[in-house]
């Protein structure tokens, strides 16, 4: 007959003891009466409901209220806090401003990191979606040779039949292709996938078939942007779309409109079509079967409870069987990359591929900087509150004499800090809301301001940490002071306190370190962007050649286009190339050697006058001639170095499968075609791929087939607008209505290093930001020191001291502190920067003068801040200072 014990215990737990007995009694009584009327289950439920209803402030806080929060004291403390804030407007303002700025910075970084972490997580069961990648390891040493994200065409199909635990599997390859709208043609990003793609990825289908929208080669799924572009406001479902894939014009029916979830997706698309279209893209049959040639990516979805490590081993074995790997080959180990790792670079996987990737180093720098900004703001806060509280030392003295406990005074300080921090937090939230578009622009991010629980939690934790730490330290400083001396006024208020000096040193250490870091960062960035790349990038224009022609036709089209340009006096020369400077990952060929080792060399197909057009320098041998056969190849310095050739001219690329002879006719000076992060890789330039292809045993490529995709045009300086028109006119004359795209190589290179530039400017802003906050603190601190010594200065002035002497007097101590800070900061900054620079193949030296300069800069700024404030004293009549009481 008794109610469940735990519910009674629960009430007993929260109910104030005075009320507990009668409350439980009443609840008990009602329960017994309920049981007469209702079932046991319902009575229990009603009892529980009652227990929860009693869990309310009116009960919880009754009587115990006085112990929990002293409302009377709270009111007074609140009043005092507000009064103090009003009285010391300047300090409160600096405190709030500094805190608000740092919290805002923290919030922006929070949004940024949140977006990066949430990338690709919108897919259902995203934990069980993987990209299939290959690791190449040496058979002898197990050393990691390289990674590869691409696989052969046949793998996905074979695996689907072979391994039942793979629920879904799709091939994925994308590239730009043409889409026709009436007589016009546009370039769009086209993605070729298996129908299973939509079982793996859950891009929201906005319109059309939700399940299996892509069944066969005559269907297409498009993005909303495409729907609007090609069909306007009309319903795109069931409409026909004309796409040029490879050489073929295909007409497909739009079956669905899928949202590419731009802000969170690393696999962007405009149009998705069936993988069967691959046939039009790649003619050579050998590519579509077999395992030697890797050119597309494979994604798969497993059961949620699948053992990934075990499956990786099974896959590795199966792969070896399919690809007929022998004991002599490098080990190829299959690794499954979770799609949550697509966006963030990770050391465990290769970074190239279809997915947009992202270097987390810069995020760590940003997180570090935001922490630094917050620490600086907190330091400001502590220094200001503790020093400024010395003004209120009498207040505390009196309160202590009247019987206030230390705990109560600490509570008051905490409350004051909390009010300031909350005000700062509110300002920061509003500011962030308005700054997010600016930030998006600066960082090329797609962040949305969403008031989520995570955000609120973050800001609450941030504010609490800031308030607790700063109030603890400042109350430690203030309350240590003796009550009697506080009241007598004998306390040396302007005097030095070890804690404060320490904080000033820490603050200045950060400042010096930041300045050093910013300078080195900037130097490195400008070094990278100004470094000679080994070719003449100025006045060089790239024009995309038609994508819908096969090799011979494309070469022919290029010749006609080139002849059209020849007559133009502004055009110096025109060449054609397979891979352009805008491509980061050039096609790499693998040649098997007699000793079964593998040689990997980057390859580019070019027209004979490529070198002269690009302004590449020949080290030895000769350039291509128009009448050369395809036998002639030119290699770069790195290749010669790697092979250890004394005299490379007339030699061949070693490889056991070569029959027909090709011949090295020249060596070109290294030019940088990948990224300045890396050394220049070995390279072959050839005018005909056939002579090289026969020795080929493997390809890893995002640019294929080997044919001319781009024309490179060298023009005379000046009249750029007029040249652009001429080239366009020549294009229209020879290529009719195909889309025309031209870019200056300089712009392309800027684009290539854009991300780095963007981060460099973000980091500059952040550093400037923290320096500004630090300066605010400095300003307030010097003002405080000067105010304390107002009278002393008045006396000095009366006795004949000059203004400069007075400034020096105040500044002396700061200069000493900054000196110590510079000494502390230098090794720290040196170590951190050395670490960062080690990533670059080409880097600046760390000049010790930078450290000296940074220290001097901080001293200079300090001097100026002190001077401005001291001038006020110097300018007023000393009698005024002395009269003050």
């Amino acid at each position, binding site marked *: 007959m*008794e*109610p469940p014990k735990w519910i*009674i215990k629960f009430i007993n737990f929260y109910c104030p003891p005075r*009320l507990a*007995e*009668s*409350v*439980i*009694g*009443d*609840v*008990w*009584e*009602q329960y*017994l009466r309920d049981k007469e009327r209702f079932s046991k289950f319902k009575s229990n439920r009603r009892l529980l409901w*009652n227990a929860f*209803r*009693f869990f*309310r402030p*009116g*009960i919880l806080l*009754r009587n115990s209220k006085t112990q929990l929060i002293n409302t009377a004291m709270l009111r007074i403390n609140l009043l005092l806090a507000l009064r103090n804030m009003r009285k010391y407007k300047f300090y409160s303002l600096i405190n709030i401003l500094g805190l608000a700025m740092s919290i805002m910075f923290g919030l922006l970084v929070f949004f940024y990191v949140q977006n990066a972490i949430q990338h690709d997580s919108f897919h259902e069961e995203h934990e069980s979606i993987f990209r299939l990648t290959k690791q190449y390891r040496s058979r002898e040493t197990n050393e990691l040779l390289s990674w590869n994200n691409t696989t052969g065409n046949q793998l996905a199909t074979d695996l689907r039949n072979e391994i039942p635990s793979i629920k879904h599997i799709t091939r994925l390859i994308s590239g730009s292709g043409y889409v026709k709208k009436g007589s016009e043609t546009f370039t769009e990003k086209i993605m070729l996938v298996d129908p299973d793609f939509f079982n793996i990825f859950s891009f929201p289908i906005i319109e059309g078939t939700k399940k299996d929208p892509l069944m066969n080669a005559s269907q297409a799924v498009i993005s909303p942007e495409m729907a609007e572009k090609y069909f306007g406001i009309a319903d795109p479902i069931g409409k026909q779309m004309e796409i040029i894939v490879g050489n073929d014009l295909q007409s497909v029916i739009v079956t669905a409109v899928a949202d590419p979830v731009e802000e969170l997706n690393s696999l962007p698309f405009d149009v998705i079509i069936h993988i069967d279209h691959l046939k039009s893209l790649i003619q050579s049959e050998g590519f579509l079967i077999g395992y030697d040639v890797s050119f597309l990516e494979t994604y798969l979805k497993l059961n949620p409870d699948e053992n990934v490590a075990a499956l990786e081993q099974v896959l590795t074995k199966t792969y070896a069987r399919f690809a007929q790997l022998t004991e002599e080959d490098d080990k190829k180990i299959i690794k499954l990359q979770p799609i949550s790792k697509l966006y963030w670079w990770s050391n465990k996987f290769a970074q190239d591929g279809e997915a947009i990737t992202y270097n987390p180093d810069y995020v760590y720098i940003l997180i570090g900087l935001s922490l630094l900004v917050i620490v600086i703001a907190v330091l400001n806060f502590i220094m200001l509150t503790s020093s400024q509280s010395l003004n209120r030392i009498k207040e505390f003295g009196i309160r202590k004499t009247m019987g206030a406990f230390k705990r109560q005074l600490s509570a008051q300080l905490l409350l004051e800090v909390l009010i300031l921090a909350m005000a700062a937090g509110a300002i920061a939230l509003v500011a962030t809301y308005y700054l997010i578009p600016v930030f998006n622009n600066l960082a090329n991010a797609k962040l949305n301001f969403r008031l989520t629980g995570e955000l609120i939690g973050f800001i609450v934790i941030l504010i609490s940490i800031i308030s607790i730490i700063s109030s603890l330290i400042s109350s430690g400083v203030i309350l240590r002071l003796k009550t009697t001396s506080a009241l007598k006024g004998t306390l040396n208020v302007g005097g030095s306190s070890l804690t404060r000096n320490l904080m000033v040193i820490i603050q200045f250490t950060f400042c010096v370190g930041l300045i050093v870091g910013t300078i080195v960062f900037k130097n490195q960035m400008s070094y990278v962007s100004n470094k000679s790349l080994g070719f003449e990038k100025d006045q060089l224009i790239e024009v995309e050649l038609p994508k819908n022609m096969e090799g011979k036709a494309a070469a022919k089209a290029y010749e006609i286009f080139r002849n059209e340009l020849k007559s133009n006096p502004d055009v110096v020369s025109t060449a054609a190339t397979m891979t352009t400077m805008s491509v980061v990952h050039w096609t790499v060929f693998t040649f098997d050697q007699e000793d079964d080792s593998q040689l990997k060399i980057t390859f580019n197909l070019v027209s004979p006058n490529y070198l002269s057009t690009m302004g590449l320098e020949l080290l030895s041998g000769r350039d291509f001639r128009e009448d050369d056969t395809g036998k002639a190849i030119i290699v770069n310095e790195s290749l010669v170095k790697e092979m250890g050739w004394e005299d490379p001219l007339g030699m061949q690329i070693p490889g056991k499968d070569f029959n027909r002879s090709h011949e090295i006719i020249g060596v070109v000076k290294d030019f940088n075609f990948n990224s300045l992060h890396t050394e220049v890789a070995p390279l072959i330039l050839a005018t005909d791929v056939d002579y090289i292809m026969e020795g080929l045993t493997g390809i890893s490529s995002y640019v294929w087939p080997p044919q001319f995709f781009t024309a490179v045009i060298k023009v005379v300086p000046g009249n750029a607008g007029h040249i652009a028109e001429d080239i366009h006119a020549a294009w229209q004359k020879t290529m009719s209505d195909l889309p025309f795209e031209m870019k200056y190589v300089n712009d392309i290179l800027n684009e290539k290093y854009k991300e780095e530039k963007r981060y460099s400017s973000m980091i500059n802003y952040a550093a400037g930001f923290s320096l500004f906050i630090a300066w605010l603190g400095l300003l307030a601190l010097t003002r405080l020191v000067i105010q304390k010594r107002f009278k002393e200065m008045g006396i000095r002035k009366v006795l004949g001291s000059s203004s400069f002497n007075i400034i020096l007097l105040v500044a002396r101590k700061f200069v000493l502190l900054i000196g110590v800070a510079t000494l502390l900061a230098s090794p720290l900054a040196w170590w951190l920067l050395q670490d960062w620079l080690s990533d670059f193949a080409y880097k600046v030296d760390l000049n010790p003068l930078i450290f000296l300069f940074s220290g001097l800069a901080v001293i200079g700024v300090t001097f100026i801040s002190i001077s401005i404030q001291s001038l006020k004293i110097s300018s007023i009549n000393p009698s005024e200072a002395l009269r003050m009481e």
Partner: protein
Amino acid sequence: MKKEYLGEFEELVLTMVALLGENAYGNAIVDEISEKIGREVNLSAVHVTLYRMEDKGYVSSEMGGASNMRGGRRKRIFSVTNAGLQMLQTLKEQRQELWSLIPDLKFSSI
């Protein structure tokens, strides 16, 4: 000192306490409200209101008898103080005065 007011629910509970006399405790008041005016109220609401009025000085309380029905717990019996009675009285007079000021109440159907 500002003038104290009673909320509608407070007035209801206070009236019930006055009405129940010796036997005014949580459950009895809930039952009485349900019985007299057919309104289902939650026990916790009644408790909180009673404590609030105790703070205001309109009711006082003492512990009453225990019973098996209550798991051996005693009741908290409330009684109306003079101030509470005064308040009820005032409220009633105010009501009546206001009612008398309403011009002839007629039902339109007549």
